[in-house]
C-alpha cells in the first residue's frame, strides 16, 4: 500500500493504490504462470509483501520477513539471504535458470524458487495488481 501525504493537507487520507491482500505462493504461481524449480518445497505460505533487488547486501538490509524476493541473481548466495531474512520465496526473472547447487540448497533449506520469463518491472506490476505490496 502506498501512502501519499502532502503538507498542505494535514492528515491527508492514506490512499491505497492496490487492494492489499494475502495470497498463497501457490496461487500466485498458478495465476502468473511461474515454474517451480524446487518441487519438493511447500508453497502454501501466504505472502503479503515483496521486495525487488539484485544487490544482495541491499536485500539483506531492506527486505522484511515473509517478503517474496524478485531477482535476476541465480547463485547460491541468494538462498543464504532468503534463509537469513526468512523470506517466503525467491522469484527469478527474465527466464533465468538457477545454478544446480542453488536448487539443491534451496530444497534442503525449504526455500521455494520460482521462475518467470517476464522482466522485473512487469512481474512486480502484476504482483501489485494482485495485492502484493512493497510497503516496509
Amino acid at each position, binding site marked *: 500500500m502506498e501512502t501519499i501525504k502532502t503538507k498542505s493537507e494535514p492528515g491527508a487520507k492514506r490512499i491505497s493504490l492496490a487492494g492489499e491482500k494475502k495470497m498463497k505462493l501457490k496461487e500466485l504461481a498458478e495465476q502468473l504462470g511461474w515454474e517451480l524449480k524446487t518441487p519438493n518445497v511447500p508453497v502454501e505460505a501466504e505472502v503479503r509483501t515483496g521486495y525487488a533487488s539484485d*544487490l*544482495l*547486501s541491499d536485500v*539483506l538490509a531492506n527486505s522484511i520477513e515473509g517478503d517474496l524476493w524478485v531477482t535476476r*541473481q541465480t*547463485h*547460491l*548466495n541468494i*538462498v*543464504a*539471504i532468503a*534463509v*537469513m531474512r526468512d523470506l517466503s520465496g525467491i522469484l527469478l526473472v527474465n527466464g533465468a535458470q538457477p545454478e544446480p547447487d542453488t536448487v539443491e*540448497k534451496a530444497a534442503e*533449506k525449504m526455500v521455494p524458487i520460482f521462475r518467470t520469463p517476464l522482466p522485473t518491472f512487469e512481474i512486480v506490476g502484476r504482483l501489485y495488481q494482485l495485492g502484493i505490496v512493497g510497503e516496509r
Partner: protein
Amino acid sequence: MHILDVVQNSLAARATLVEVRIREDLQKDLLRIEVKDNGRGIPGELTRRVTDPFFTSRTTREVGLGLPLFKEAAERCRGHLEVESQEGQGTKIIAHFQLDHFDRAPLGDMGETLAVLITGNPEVDFLYEHEVDGQSYRLETREMREILGSVGLDDPSVLCFIRQDVQKGLKKIGAATFPKIMEVLK
C-alpha cells in the same frame, strides 16, 4: 564472468600467454584476482581510461564494458582494480575484493571457464594458479602440451580433463568459499 571478459581482452590484444592468478586470504578476508598477458598492451595515457565506460565502449573495440564492470564489482566489495600496462609488453589487471562480502558473486565454474578458453584458443598458452591460505592448485598448458604430444589442446578429451581437474583441484584446496554465508547454509 569477469575473468572470462578480462581474458577475452587479452586474447583480443593478441596475447600468446595469459596468466590467471587467484589468491584467497581467509585471515585477511581478501580475494585477489590477477590476469596478466603478453599482448600488445595499452598505450600510455589510455591505461588510466580503460575503466571509464564511456571512453572504452566508444573508441576501442578490444576493451568493452568488461573492465568498468569489473572495477565496479571490486569497489562494491570494498576493493579496487589496478591496471598496469606497457605498450608492446602486455597488460596486468589486478582486482581486490573483500572475500566475504555479500555482494561478491561467486567465481563461477572455473573449470568450465578454463576449458572453454583453452580449447577455444589452442594456440595460446594459459597458466592458472589458485591459492587458498598457502595451499595451491596449478594448471599450465605448456606442461600439458609436453604430455599430450601430438594431441592438440582443442581435443574434446582435453576439454573434459580440464573441467574435471580444475574442479577437483579447487575442491581439494577449499577454494571459492563464502565462509560467513556458508555458515547459514550448513
